[in-house]
């Protein structure tokens, strides 16, 4: 009885477990926590999801099977790691995680079009993603190649104050992963000086305060298992010159990395090879960030991508709730040798309100792309899919 009372008062509502069916042999999780989707072009994604009290929707044990290929493990886990919202006048400065698990919004059928709701708070669906490829046949219809792509989406939404955040994990039939968050709901409604805001409503009386949404994701890559994964940074030298030369930097130690024109990173397992003998990797590109840099007591905003050695208790980018670990990602990224990398991606969006943001505010999205690089020896979708020509 005592325990029962405790649970009633403290447990996150949306964290309440759902009815399970036994996991099939070899599957890492049971229904309804298993997502196993074969997209029309033959690409298959298998993963487990969990609604955690603090991080909310978490994807785990993510594996990709390119059409006609063997399955390869990609992520051990992926989750939101913070939503930092500093206002332009300097205050307030919110850390919106938060107990996302208990802030989850119950989703309706309309919120999950054509998909399947897993419990009340998570939606699994597939949708069109536009052209997968298009190549003219130069008059020969048999040579013409065109296909429409699809993607698997796992999403949840959270109500944090006046904001609603929609968190999506998008798994493309091209092997890409796109984590993104859409902010909607309502503006804060706080008035500020003209230099910190934008006039909304009639005339120039209400200056809605501008602010940033600095969103952090934590991704624990385990390409074909946790061993041997290496992170590399790619740069291309040449400024106001005709030539560009590639510079590869292997990040053997923990790193605080900055965005830079043309810069990208990849996580590679040199022992997992495609049919061409090239090492399998996933590439991370974070070029869409507003690159907010806060004061010295917000050093976690000072880099765009952090590479750290895996530690189970390092889960949030700020306000990390573990006495065994440091409290923010800039402190995790010390000098340790990286044997099992975790990537933290910080994507900022500077929100200057506009009249269109009147209630309910249109969604503004932010996120980044994780794309396969040499996972297959060629375009695995080229000979598959309903719109591909007969062979």
């Amino acid at each position: 009885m005592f325990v029962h009372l405790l649970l009633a008062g403290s447990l996150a509502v949306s964290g309440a477990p759902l009815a399970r069916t036994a996991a099939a042999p070899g599957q890492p999780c049971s229904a309804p926590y298993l997502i196993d989707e074969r997209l029309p072009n033959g690409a298959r994604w298998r993963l487990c999801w969990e609604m955690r009290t603090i991080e909310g929707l978490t994807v785990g044990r993510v594996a990709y099977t390119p059409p006609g290929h063997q399955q390869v493990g990609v992520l051990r886990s992926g989750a939101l790691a913070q939503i930092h919202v500093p206002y332009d006048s300097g205050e307030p400065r919110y850390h919106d995680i938060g107990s996302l698990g208990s802030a989850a919004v119950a989703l309706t059928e309309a919120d999950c079009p054509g998909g399947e709701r897993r419990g009340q708070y998570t939606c699994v669906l597939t949708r069109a993603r536009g052209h997968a490829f298009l190549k003219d046949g130069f008059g020969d219809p048999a040579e013409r190649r065109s296909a429409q792509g699809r993607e698997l989406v796992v999403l949840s939404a959270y109500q944090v104050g006046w904001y609603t955040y929609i968190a999506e994990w998008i798994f493309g039939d091209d092997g890409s992963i796109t984590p993104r968050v859409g902010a909607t709901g309502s503006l804060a409604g706080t008035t500020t000086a003209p230099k910190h805001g934008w006039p909304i409503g009639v005339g120039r009386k209400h200056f809605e305060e501008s602010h940033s949404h600095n969103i952090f994701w934590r991704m624990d890559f385990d390409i074909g298992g946790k061993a041997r994964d290496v992170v590399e940074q790619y740069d291309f030298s040449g400024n106001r010159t005709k030539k560009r030369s590639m510079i590869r930097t292997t990040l053997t130690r923990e790193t605080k990395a900055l965005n830079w024109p043309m810069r990208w990173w990849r996580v590679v397992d040199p022992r997992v090879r495609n049919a061409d003998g090239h090492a399998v990797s996933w590439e991370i590109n974070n070029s869409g960030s507003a690159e907010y840099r806060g004061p010295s007591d917000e050093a976690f905003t000072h880099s765009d991508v952090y590479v750290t050695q895996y530690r189970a208790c390092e889960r949030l980018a700020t306000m990390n709730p573990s006495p065994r670990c440091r409290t923010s990602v800039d402190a995790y990224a010390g000098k340790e040798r990286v044997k099992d990398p975790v990537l933290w991606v910080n994507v900022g969006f500077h929100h200057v309100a506009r009249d269109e943001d009147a209630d309910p505010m249109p969604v503004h999205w932010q996120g980044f792309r994780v794309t396969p690089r040499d996972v297959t020896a060629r375009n695995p979708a080229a000979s598959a899919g309903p719109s591909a020509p007969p062979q």
Partner: protein
Amino acid sequence: MRRSWVLAGATLSAAVVAGTAMFLSGGEPQASQVQRQPPPAPGDPLSQDEVRRATEVATASSRAHMASGRIELLYVEREDDKAQDDRRAEAYLYDYADDALIVRTVDLAEGKVVEESKGRGVQPPPSKREELRAAELLLAHPKLGKGVRAEYKKASGRQLRTAADLQLRGLIFRDAGACRTHRCVRLFVRLPDGRFLDTSRIVIDLSAKKVQTLEW
């Protein structure tokens, strides 16, 4: 920026936000209806039974302190440590007398606490119960409580009965003053007409049971 801890001059007005979103309550209906469940797979969240057992084990040594209100169970999470093959749960408890977070790791097969860590200055998000307690402290504040009641009356035409009438969301605040070591919460308070109270300057110190107003 200037930040000080003054109570005087605090104003409380409702921000002009016609929020359409709702804070939701109510459990997953499926959960309680299910009697027999197959054993969880490694990647499954904690089952109801596992949460119950982990809570029992993790709180066994703290019952007296919990009954007196000194220690609060915040939540129980699945331990997601890939080095561990066993099913493990982490119970988060907060010790208000010590202002310290206690995390107890429970091995579910063994049915015992296998690891305990305790630290100060570490603040996990507030539990539902703490959000409610923060709102009660706000309502008990002579000036601010009156303001909240007046805004509630204006929004609903009814008298506010208890803190539970308000739609609450709490975030930890630890940027200044006593809140660097205490457990402090900033509340979002949604009124029945969809407006939010302007609570951005109000911080509720759960450790000291005090309401503070930030100045900037």
